[in-house]
């Protein structure tokens, strides 16, 4: 576990060196959350509204940050593999055609953490700087 954290820390460091303007983003959930790891496709599906459950009926509620935050851009680029513009177009289509609603948007990492802690079915991404004991990094495989 720690080892993994270290690895993450190293990658965060690398990314900080690489992109000075970008924030280090972590995918996290409450430590009490029933899931500890997600497949990459599961994560993408959850954030793009294609599914609301993982495994055998385990509901996961994704949380988003407001449109112009750095964490958001970082998260979608790195974890979902799409630009914010693509995400916007995606949700545009889904909302317009009435097939889904985007994840709930919270104003910043702090608000996301509060929500994660209060509801352990939720999943979110935060600036690594705000990471604390109540949270657990969700492994993406």
């Amino acid at each position, binding site marked *: 576990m720690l080892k993994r954290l270290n690895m993450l820390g190293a990658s965060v460091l690398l990314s900080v060196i690489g992109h000075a303007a970008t924030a280090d983003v972590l995918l996290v959930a409450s430590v009490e959350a029933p899931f500890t790891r997600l497949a990459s496709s599961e994560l993408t599906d959850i954030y793009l509204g294609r599914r609301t459950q993982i495994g055998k009926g385990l509901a996961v509620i994704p949380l988003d940050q407001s*449109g112009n935050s750095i964490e958001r851009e970082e998260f979608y680029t790195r974890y979902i593999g799409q630009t914010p513009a693509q995400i916007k177009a995606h949700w*545009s289509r889904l*909302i*317009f055609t009435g097939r889904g609603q985007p994840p709930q*948007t919270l104003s910043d990492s702090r608000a996301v953490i509060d929500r994660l802690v209060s509801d352990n079915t939720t999943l979110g991404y935060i600036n690594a700087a705000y990471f604390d004991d109540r949270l657990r990094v969700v492994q993406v495989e």
Partner: protein
Amino acid sequence: MSNPFYLQSPKTESAYGNHTHRRLHHLANPVWLFSILALLLLIIIWSGTYFLVKKEHSAVERQTALSVGEILDTYEARVVRALREIDTTLKLVRFTANSVDSSAVLDILQAQELLPPALLFTVSVVNERGVVVESTNSLLIEQYLMSPMQSGQSNDTLAVDRVITDDVVQLTFTRPLMSGHETVLGWIVISIDADFFVSSYAVRSMGDQGMLALVGDDGLAHVVRAGSEIYSDEVLEGTPWVKSKRDAGLPLFLTTWRGEERYTMVRELYSFPLSIVVGLSKNEQLASAQAIAKKYWQRAGWASGLLLVVFTALGRFSWKLQQERQRVMEERILHAEQVEHLAFHDALTELPNRAFFSYLVTQAVRLGERHEEPFALLFLDLDRFKLVNDSLGHEAGDHLLQETAKRLTSAVRASDVVARLGGDEFVIILHKVDSQACVTPIAEKILDSVREPFYLAGKECHVSVSIGASLFPFDGLDEQTLIKNADMAMYQAKQAGKNTACFYTTELGLETDVRLMLESGLQRALDQKELKLIYKTKHNSSDGEVIGIEALLRWQHPVLGLLEPSQFISMAEESGLIVSIGNWAIEQACKQSVLWQEQGAPALTIAVDVYERQFYDEVFVKSVNDIVAATRMRPELLELQVAESIVLKDVEYTAGVFKEIKKIGVKIAVDDFGMKYSKLSSLKVLPLDVLKVDATLVDSLSGTYSEQQLSFAVIKFGQCLSPKVFAKEVSPQQQSVFMHGLTALQFHGFYSSETFENRKF
């Protein structure tokens, strides 16, 4: 003779038959037949293909209309739902603002998750001055946000505007924020990217060139998505974009926008100042139909090609077959025509032949009887044809006949008929000629034209023609009589010295009848012993002593009575019977002489005439020898009389014959001495026994002095040639002349005119 008309009729029939046959052939002509058939099949193929393509096309169009309608319905539902949500949010914000005394209306609603997703929708509250006092997008707060259209608007309607910020087109939906229903405190604005309204574009259902558009009531498109491109503020051309009424049957339009033809439908939205447009690319929709059509056209092309190849091959084959058949047919017809022509025309001169001429004369006779039209028939015979043929060869003879045919044809009118009967005999029918006076000039013209020199085998050659003419109806009422009479007249012309024309007369007819009777009776005369000899004594001119006997030939004709040689000898010469007759005469004379000897009569010479053909017969000498031997005649008592003309004809031959005859011991007399003075010198080479002076010379004795002197001279000349000279048919008066000149001329004798038959004298 067969009727040429019957033979000719197939020709006219065949000509007519040929015509109708040809017309039928045209219809059944394989070229036409196969062309028409191929054309029909081509029309069927191509019209069938066209029909199928059209059907496919219209099916696709129908399908497209359905698709556009369906898409339009769906699109309408989505747009309306989105608009309702927006409107509802606006009303919710206003309601909340009016009911909650707080400046953080949006926060309250946000907390309750009553606002649309902030990701797309930006909800702002603007105060009456146009400044954003509250917004889901914190960046907008304190910004001046007043869409131009909203200034001064106070009635409670949903306003839709286009706002372009940083190249991003946004649509703003605005409702006024009012207290009660009077004062406008500000506005609630929801802005959203225009793209949102065309985000339902799906390539799967609309293709790469489909179109979705949201159009404002000003006719300008708020947003248009065509394929992957998004446009705003575009004018969509054409009335259908704007004027189309909702529920007005919603026709499908074919519109062109930015170079793309589309099946388009427009629908005005109920209760919103907006219209929606859905279009599907014509090319894309018809692509499948066009692919199918292309396949159909290709197949039609292949089928047509195959059809053309097959039909061309068939047509060509059939055409060749028919050509061949026609060629054979034509050859057959040509052959038949040639055969027919040959049957009725002379191959050498191309003139009608005897058969055809006979038919023509018969026709002329019939017409003449019917219309009382007289005509003349000329019978022509070339005078020296045999000579030309013998001396210049048959080729020259043929050429002469051809040339003559041409001259004859050009000498008469075109309506007259010139025909060749065969050999050198031609006949001419002169139509509408009623008298000899009319025929004479034509005959003269013919004579003149034939008299012109011919050039045969490189030599100039003079030929003449003898013409006999008979007139219908005067000289005969049928073909045979007319021809026969013309023939007689022609014969008369020959007799009259040739190169002339004679007309048939009744007398001529009679004469000819007699001649024919003689001709036909000669052989019979020989067989039936109708011929006989009579005898005349010869007397010496000085003392009247009988010095010999002359045998004279007579024909006791059963009908015509006793005939002189002059009446039948020429015919006998022509037929060749003269050889037998002459030999018979010699034999008969010998027998008679021998008989007389036995009866104790004195040994007198007996003179017998020898005729031309008999003399020139190659076995003549042998015949004489045989007769002398057979009759046991004393040869020195037989005297053969040969006319001077015969002797002089071929002196060499004559000399040979005379020599042979002298060997036998038979004497030779030349008769008619003095007719051909020019060749008298030839006589001196001949071993003659007797000369008989020609009767004309004897006649001259009773003429003028000079004539008498001439006769004496010739007789004297004869004396030099021959030991004995005779004159015949001497009258008592002439006899005295001889007597008078006897001392001077020393005539040896003469003979009297007494005649007797085989009686004892």
